């Protein structure tokens, strides 16, 4: 029947396979205008003048606006994790006097075709007095604006007695570790269509994604519209990964233009714009001290890190810094811990979240430390982890930290058990023997592994409305969103499990702010946990109603009646209930609330071969062991793992936004920003476990969206060191051939 646990094919797929998707660029309204953004070519400077005369004279142009034309619109506010002092660093929708990164919007052109808009945009001339750019977050803070330094905020988290840990240490290790600047880069670029709906006297934004309800309130407030007069509509979304769907300047501009001009205004980003203007991520440098006892047990970690935030603080505020600090200790006991994260402004594209924000970085740092300790103490890299893991009997485990405003409590886990299953699953001793034999024969090939703890299912709530029509068709309306991960199928499976119907009889409505009053959207691997719980609750309510009605109609015993055994079609029962209620169809609503996240965990194992001459690196094998509590659709869970792993490989070996000293981005096309192709990604192997179901939600599920990526950088770095037999310490991602060559040359020279 397609209930929970079945690898059914997706409800989403037929239109996507036929070319009938409705992505942002596919939406068209009669009489639509097209917006083109003029972007700063300068990393840091003062705007002296913007000449728009030639653009205004260009054929087909309707309007050209600069910062002065939108000065009354406030800057874009934070969606989550605001901390005091960040407000002054928010981004205006068009530059107001200063430009702070190459790609910053300084003007828009609106014309009757995209070609005309792009032609005219080239005629806008911004006269900008160049200032020295700040291109690193590590140097002492400079001036952002009079009275404001480039350090926007500092996040501090700690627990335990750190001085005592260092006093008791047999060894103290100091490491400097960095993760490069890279980001989600969905295959669909961003897009937004502002539409003034005269019939309904309201403004609409089409092409919404991720968090439509939050964005509705945010944009309505910026435009001084009552929320009732503004709705967002999500169509197909070509990938999210954290960066897509936040409120960006362009979204507000398209809506503002539609509101002012009372005509549809369409903005579709091109790829160069995407790489210059959509959120970057990662780019952290950590300075770590660790206190370790004689047996390799880590007694304490003190970490100071620097987050390169780019030109402004965007909607995520302190999210990435917060998660980095709150999740850094991972699966290990680490009795004392202190982290200080500096959010520093630079003159690069502003940064936000990217799949496993803060954990990809923190896991790299922590797992590099584990490898380092193992190597220095002459211990096996698996053994060092075993010695430090939190034992199963200490679960649930209060980490002593908070993340995303919730206390970090590992709700269920068997860390050592998963490690043992992975070792058995890949036959680790035999694999290591094979690799050793290959090395003895001259190959540079090695194995690395890294542990991770993820978080998922962020609250505080999720609402669901389920309606059963007289036909028996089930409609599930949720405030969650779909970024392509299979929300419709999974929620249909959850409802089908409770109601005993086929999942194909269920339709799922998401991302439409006019269909449900509030919603949290899709981020932080939250939908299966939160929306799944709410669907379960609403479906249980309906089931109770339907069973009671069946018992009444059959004059039978409620306890002995089942929905599929009662002989009355579901639609008929639902219609009878609706008649009682005096409503057109039987409906139930439910809200699931929680104060806690749930924590999936796992291990990544990589086998990497290094070419002795070119220093090119090939990932031969990539294995992800991942306990997700319970799989609603195992095929979709594996799909999430595969995709995350490929992105993790990208961040470990290829992807990096590089800048020149004067702030010019050098990775502004797919020829320069290298994403993995099939050539660079092996068939990803996954070992999905359900040994630790979550006790804090009705389904026992944990979010599977991010664990495919989290430890990839750490595992690959470890494998490369193993391949070349520990002559170097890999302290920076991505490990490009040039960096590896230079490290090896330095190592052999010293």
């Amino acid at each position, binding site marked *: 029947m397609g209930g929970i646990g079945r690898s059914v*094919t*997706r409800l*989403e*797929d*037929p239109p*996507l*396979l*036929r*070319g*009938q*998707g409705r*992505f942002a*660029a*596919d939406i068209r309204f009669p009489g639509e205008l097209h917006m083109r953004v003029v972007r700063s070519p300068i990393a840091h400077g003062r705007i002296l003048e913007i000449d728009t005369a030639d653009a205004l004279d260009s*054929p*087909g142009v309707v309007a050209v606006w600069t910062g002065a034309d939108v000065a009354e619109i406030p800057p874009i506010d934070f969606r989550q994790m605001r901390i005091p002092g960040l407000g002054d660093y928010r981004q205006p929708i068009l530059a107001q006097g200063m430009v702070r990164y190459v790609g910053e919007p300084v003007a828009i052109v609106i014309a*009757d*075709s995209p*070609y*005309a808009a792009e032609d005219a945009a080239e005629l806008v001339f911004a006269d900008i007095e160049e200032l020295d750019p700040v291109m690193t977050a590590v140097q002492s803070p400079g001036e952002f604006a009079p009275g404001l330094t480039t350090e926007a905020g500092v996040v501090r988290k700690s627990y335990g007695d750190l001085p005592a840990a260092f006093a008791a240490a047999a060894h103290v290790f100091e490491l400097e570790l960095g993760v490069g600047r890279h980001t*989600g*880069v*969905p*295959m*669909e*670029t961003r897009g937004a269509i502002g539409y003034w709906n005269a019939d309904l006297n309201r403004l609409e934004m089409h092409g919404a994604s991720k968090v439509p309800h939050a964005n509705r309130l945010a944009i309505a407030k910026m435009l001084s519209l009552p929320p009732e007069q503004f709705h967002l509509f999500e169509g*197909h*979304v*070509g*990938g*999210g*990964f954290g960066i897509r769907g936040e409120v960006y300047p362009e979204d507000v501009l398209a809506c503002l233009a539609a509101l002012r001009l009372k005509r549809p205004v369409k903005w579709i980003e*091109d*790829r160069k714009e995407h790489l210059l203007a959509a959120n970057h991520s990662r780019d952290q440098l950590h300075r770590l001290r660790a206190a370790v006892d004689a047996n390799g047990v880590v007694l304490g970690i003190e970490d100071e890190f620097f987050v390169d935030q780019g030109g402004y603080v965007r909607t995520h505020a302190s999210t990435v810094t917060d998660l980095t600090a709150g999740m850094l200790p991972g699966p290990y006991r680490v009795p004392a811990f202190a982290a200080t994260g500096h959010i520093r402004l630079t003159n690069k594209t502003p940064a936000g979240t990217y799949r496993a924000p803060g954990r990809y970085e923190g896991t790299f740092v922590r797992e590099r430390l584990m490898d380092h300790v193992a190597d220095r103490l002459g211990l096996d890299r698996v053994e060092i982890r075993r010695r430090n893991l939190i034992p199963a009997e200490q679960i649930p485990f209060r980490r002593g930290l908070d993340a995303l405003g919730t206390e970090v409590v590992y709700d269920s886990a068997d860390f050592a058990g998963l490690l043992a299953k992975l070792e058995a699953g890949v036959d680790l001793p035999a694999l290591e023997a094979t690799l050793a034999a290959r090395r003895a024969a001259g190959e540079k090939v090695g194995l690395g592994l890294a542990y991770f703890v993820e978080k998922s299912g962020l609250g505080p709530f999720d609402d669901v409305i389920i309606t059963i029509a007289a036909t028996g068709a089930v409609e599930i309306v949720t405030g969650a969103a779909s*970024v*392509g*991960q*299979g929300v419709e199928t999974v929620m249909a499976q959850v409802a089908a499990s409770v109601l005993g119907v086929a999942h194909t009889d269920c339709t799922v409505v998401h991302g439409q702010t006019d269909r449900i009053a509030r919603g949290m959207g899709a981020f932080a691997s939250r939908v299966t946990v939160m929306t799944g719980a709410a669907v379960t609750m609403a479906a249980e309510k309906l089931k109770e109603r339907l069973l009671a009605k069946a018992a009444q109609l059959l004059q039978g015993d409620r306890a002995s009646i089942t929905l599929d055994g009662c002989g009355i079609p579901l639609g008929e029962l639902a219609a009878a209930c609706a008649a009682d209620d005096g409503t057109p169809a039987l409906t139930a609503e439910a809200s699931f609330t929680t104060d806690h996240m749930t924590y999936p965990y796992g291990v990544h194992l990589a086998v990497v071969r290094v070419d002795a001459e070119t220093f090119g690196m090939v990932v031969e094998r990539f294995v992800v062991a991942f306990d997700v509590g319970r799989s609603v659709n195992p*095929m*979709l869970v*594996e*799909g999430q*793992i*595969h*995709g*995350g*792993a*490929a*992105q993790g490989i990208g961040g470990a070996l290829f992807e990096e936004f590089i800048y020149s000293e004067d702030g010019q981005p050098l990775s502004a*096309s*797919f*020829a320069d920003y290298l*994403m993995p*192709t*099939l*050539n660079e*990604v092996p*068939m*990803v192997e996954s070992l999905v476990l359900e040994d630790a179901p979550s006790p804090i939600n009705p389904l026992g599920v944990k979010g599977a969206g991010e664990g*495919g990526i989290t430890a990839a950088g750490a595992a690959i770095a470890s494998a490369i060191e193993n391949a070349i037999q520990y002559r170097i310490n890999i302290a920076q991602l991505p490990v490009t051939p040039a960096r590896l060559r230079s490290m090896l040359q330095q190592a052999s020279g010293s």
Partner: protein
Amino acid sequence: MSEPKVTVCCTVNGQKVEADVVPRMSLADMLREELHLTGTHLGCEHGVCGACTIIVNGAPVRSCLMFGIQAEGAEIRTVEGLADGDTLSPLQRAFWEKHGLQCGFCTPGFLMLATWMLEQPEPVTEERLRHVLSSNLCRCTGYTNIVRAVTAAAKEMGKWAESAAA
């Protein structure tokens, strides 16, 4: 608009069509904007990602790198022409069954590229599959299930050959 337009006559998915386009309009834009075939997607507009891959006169091409006017007289196939009415092609069905797509944005390009590969006389081996499909980008699937889907379709169509032992 003062730009002169040119009438392009070509065949798209077996049907004769005409489009009046400005000479600088890309073939992808002509398909999407003039012929309303929005299944062909634009992911980079500089010929790298392959989302806009279509088949022109029997060859896979990046439709973002061709002008519409260059398609005069051409036989063009797009994702909209793969299914036979309600019946998906074996490759489309394999993508569905093997979970070879997530967001679905790159999917039309992969479908057209793989459709072309499966129509060539030479058999499909794992090496050839990896070589050909590595010319397109996907950001969701990690390619693993795309490989499984294309492999399954090749087997069903009798096009699969095990690689020669190394």
